[in-house]
Every structure is written in structure tokens, then in C-alpha cells.
């Protein structure tokens, strides 16, 4: 107790070994990213050395990458959400109905976000209050909201041309300097916000804790149900936001909006090293994962394979990366 050293504050001394150990999964995914990128550049230099392809990535990847951020929180908390692609479309139904009623794009936008939040909140309620595993609960709500979209839209698609005149259009999907897509800016904003929430806010601490050991978390007074409901609500709100972005980008609404994003979004999270078992994961990994997933499609075509190869390559990369992450996690302990 008379140890004089003891009063010195903790000095986080930098050591390479420690850095590697505590950032193993992030370095792993970053290594995969660089390796694949080099392969793409060698295989298709014309495509991957030109800036066009990167602008293309930055305009299309955010549509699903934005949703992958709050989904990362859910997976860390030991939960799953399969309904967010339907919530994307349901948010747009709220958007269109509100615009039809009020002729206000701003109100329509707010209505979409509210709709998404409510749909996510309901997922949370079903999981927490009724104790249904989220995997099952959100299969149900995925069908439910898609069904609601089809009923309310009567299966029809329609132009959103009126949004071009509003401020919302350039703010969400405009191009800075005529080249840099605004949706990329929003992806960066959502990424930083989710990173801060997960790593710097006590809420994020509780997300890690309930995913790691819910019983411990509850013994120590964490309201696990409340944390879950907030995470699901967050996914709902951000999915509706992504739905508005994706629809305004093409200024068109399809009732099938969101189809095809489910696997890419999930794959981004798992490729990024978030543990399937909960309790561990990073926003940075998901961000890199989303760009790998987004690049694969372009790359398969650019290197001369047919589009039929895309899914096969997605599949192998996901399986290999999950194996790699679980291996790294065991080794670095």
C-alpha cells in the first residue's frame, strides 16, 4: 500500500504487440481489404485505377452500408434483425402518404423516420416483452411490413419527381462539386455517430455487456430490455432514412425497395468481424466490410466473369472471413 508508483496515472504505453492484440479483427479485415484491392487492380487495372469506379462505389454502397451500422450494434447485443429491408419500404409509404396529404417534403421525411422508428420499436417490444428470439420475430415482421407496403401501394410504383424541387434532394443525394455523392457524407456521419455511441457512450457499453453476458449485466442493474428496444428502434429509424436516400437517388419508388440489401448488409457486419455470438464487434470493421461487399460485384464483372459469379464469391468470402475472425479471436486472447 505504500507503493509510490501506485499514485501515477495509467500510462497507455504504445507497443506494437499490444496494438495488434487489441485491434486484431480490425487489422485482419483491413488486410483482407488491401489484398482484395490489389488483386482487383492487377486483374482489371483499367477499371480499378480510374476514379470513376470509386465515385460509383460511394454513390451505391451507402444505401446498405448505412443500415449495417446500427445492425452492428444489434449483433453485438446478441440480436438479429431481418426486417429492416421491409422497414425501408414502409418508411417510403409513410413518406408518400404524408406528401399526398400535406404536399410537404419535409413532413414526409419526418413521417418516414417516425414510421421506421415505430416499426423498429415494435420489433423490440416483440423480442423483449414476449420473449421471442429476434431471428424469428423479425422474419415475421419482415413479411408483415412488406405485406403492408404491397397493400398500401396496391403494388404500384411511382415517380418521386416532386422531391427534386425540395432542399431534401440535394442534401441527401446531391453531389458536392458535381462529383462527391452526398449519400457518402451521410454514411460517414452515421458511421461516426454509431462509433461514438458504441465506444464512447455508456449505452454502447451496455450493448457490449448484454451481448457478452446478459445475466451479469442484469445483476449489475442494466436494463437489458430497454437497451434492446432502443437498438431495434435505431435500426428502424436508420433503415427508413436509407430508404428515403435510395428512393430519392432514383426519384422513384418501387414497392420492392430494399430487396437485395438484406444479405449485403448482414455480410458487411459479419465480414467486418462482429462476433456471431455477441459481445464483440467494431463499426470500423463493418465499414470496411461494406466496401468489400460493394466492390465484389463490380470486380467480378470487371475481371471478365459473368454476374453469375457474384453470389458464389460473396458466399466464399463471408464463410472464409467468419472463420478467419473466429481463428484470430482465439489466437489473440
Amino acid at each position: 500500500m505504500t507503493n509510490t508508483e501506485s499514485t501515477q496515472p495509467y500510462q497507455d504505453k504504445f507497443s506494437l504487440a499490444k496494438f495488434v492484440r487489441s485491434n486484431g479483427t480490425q487489422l485482419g479485415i483491413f488486410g483482407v481489404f488491401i489484398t482484395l484491392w490489389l488483386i482487383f487492380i492487377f486483374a482489371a487495372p483499367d477499371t480499378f485505377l480510374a476514379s470513376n469506379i470509386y465515385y460509383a462505389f460511394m454513390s451505391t454502397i451507402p444505401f446498405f452500408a448505412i443500415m449495417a451500422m446500427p445492425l452492428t450494434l444489434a449483433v453485438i447485443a446478441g440480436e438479429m434483425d431481418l426486417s429492416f429491408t421491409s422497414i425501408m419500404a414502409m418508411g417510403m409509404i409513410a413518406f408518400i402518404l404524408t406528401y399526398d396529404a400535406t404536399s410537404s417534403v419535409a413532413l414526409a421525411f419526418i413521417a418516414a423516420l417516425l414510421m421506421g422508428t415505430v416499426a423498429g420499436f415494435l420489433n423490440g417490444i416483440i423480442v423483449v416483452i414476449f420473449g421471442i428470439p429476434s431471428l424469428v420475430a423479425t422474419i415475421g415482421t419482415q413479411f408483415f411490413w412488406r405485406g403492408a407496403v404491397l397493400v398500401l401501394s396496391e403494388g404500384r410504383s411511382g415517380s418521386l419527381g416532386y422531391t427534386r424541387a425540395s432542399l431534401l434532394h440535394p442534401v441527401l443525394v446531391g453531389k458536392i462539386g458535381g462529383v462527391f455523392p452526398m449519400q457518402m457524407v451521410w454514411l460517414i456521419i452515421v458511421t461516426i455517430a454509431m462509433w461514438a455511441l458504441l465506444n464512447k457512450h455508456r449505452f454502447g457499453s451496455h450493448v457490449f455487456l448484454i451481448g457478452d453476458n446478459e445475466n451479469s449485466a442484469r445483476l449489475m442493474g442494466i436494463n437489458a430490455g430497454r437497451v434492446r428496444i432502443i437498438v431495434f428502434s435505431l435500426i428502424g429509424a436508420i433503415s427508413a432514412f436509407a430508404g428515403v436516400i435510395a428512393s430519392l437517388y432514383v426519384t422513384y419508388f418501387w414497392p420492392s425497395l430494399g430487396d437485395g440489401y438484406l444479405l449485403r448488409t448482414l455480410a458487411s457486419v459479419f465480414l467486418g468481424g462482429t462476433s456471431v455470438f455477441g459481445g464483440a464487434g467494431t463499426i470500423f470493421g463493418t465499414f470496411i466490410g461494406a466496401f468489400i461487399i460493394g466492390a465484389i460485384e463490380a470486380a467480378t464483372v470487371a475481371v471478365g466473369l459473368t454476374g453469375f459469379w457474384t453470389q458464389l464469391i460473396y458466399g466464399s468470402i463471408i464463410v472464409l472471413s467468419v472463420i478467419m475472425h473466429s481463428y484470430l479471436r482465439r489466437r489473440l486472447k
Partner: protein
Amino acid sequence: MTYRIELKKVSKSFGEVQALKDIDFKLGQNEVVGLLGDNGAGKSTLIKILTGYHQPTSGEIYFNGEQVENLTVPKARKLGVETVYQERALAELQTLWRNIFLGRELSNPLGFMDIKKMKDETHRLMIESMGFTSSAVTPDSPIGTFSGGEKQGVAIVRALYFNADIIILDEPTMGLSLKETRKLLNFVRGIKGAGKSAVFIDHNIFHVYNVADRVIVIDRGMVAGEFNTSDITLDDLMDKMYRIAETGSFNGAVEQEYSQGQQQ
């Protein structure tokens, strides 16, 4: 004198299982109460009612003389309760500092955490109280690879850090070395000196007899008897414990008292 905690006729059932039946319990100021009883007697269930984790099926809870309805863990903590749970309540994938501050992270009014302060405090506790000397262990180390006793040390230090008025220890010596056990027992005796109170559960009757002012024996969810350690010798207490384990009662005299109590 008001008691720090008082339970009146508290019962707790888990479905068919009645874990506690009509428990009357008091914890005074400056008092260490020991709980003794067989496996499954209901000791942990009792303390989890005090910590707000379990809500009693019936009965009343008083803190400092005032009745508390719907006690929760955060509420109990505000009332000054800190706990070392039998199951330790740690999160193995998380770092040491997150475990120390589990559920009460130091944060500003917006909820953003003061991570540097938490790491500094963790570092200080490691050196001053946990006896971690290996430089491989830092506040950023995940605790999953710690030894059993080290994990127990984390759970204990965490409960003591927050300077609570009421400290509840459910089998805290489990997995501790002789040296660490002695340190802990000295600490529990010191709790009284600092004007605080404690509830101490241990299967080692020597430990309980050594630190407790009063011992409560729980048998099959009921209070089977209470003794002031100053009024009873260790041998007598052990004798009574054997008898209760075998026959369900202490001796003739106590049995009468006990069965009268039941008839009322």
C-alpha cells in the same frame, strides 16, 4: 434505532419452487450479519432481494426505516448497496476497466463516458487493491483469461470501490488464496469500523464466525435461528449447524420456540 435494511415477512417463489418463506431480516448500522445454510437454502435468493434483482412475491422491504416499493438494482445502489454476487457478474470478453465500472460507467450528463478516468482508477485499484503485478495485465486486458481468484478479486474490488454503506458478499472467498482470504476477512471486519454494514455469506463457518456480529441460519427458505457471535462459542454454533442439517432443528429448546413461532 433504525435498521439499514429490514425485511418483513418476505417470501419468494419461482413458479412451483418456494425459495423463501416469511423471512424477517434486519441489518443494523455498524453491523456484519452472517448467513449460514445448506446448498439451496435460499441465501443467494435473499440477498438478491436486498440488491433489487429479485422482487419478492410478498412482504415488505425497508431501507433506513422507510418502506421501498419496487426495489430495482439501480435503486438499491442509490440506497447504498454494493454486491459481490456468487456468480461474480463479470463479462468475460470485456476489458478490465469496463468490468470494474459495469453498469455505473463514469459519464457526463449526456451519457458520454470519462474513459481516461475509468482506466486511471482501474490502474490504481489494480496496484493498490488487486495485487496485480504482472505487466501483461492492464486496464485494457479482457478478463476472460484471468485466473479464478483474479476474477473474484475484480468482483470484490468493484464492490468496494464505490464506497457503499451496505456491502453484500455472497461467498466472496470462493477461489481466493489464503493470503487474499485473510485480507478480505480483515476488510469485512473493518467495514464496521468505518460505520458501515455488511451481509456476509460463506460456507466456511470459521470465516463467518470470525467476522459476523450476528449469524442467521437459513434452512429450506426459512430463518431457523439467529445467534450473536458474542453469545455462542464456535463449537456450539458448529454443533447446531450439524443438527439442523440432520434433523431440521437445533435442539429441543429451540425446536419448541421455533414451532411456536410457526403456529402463531
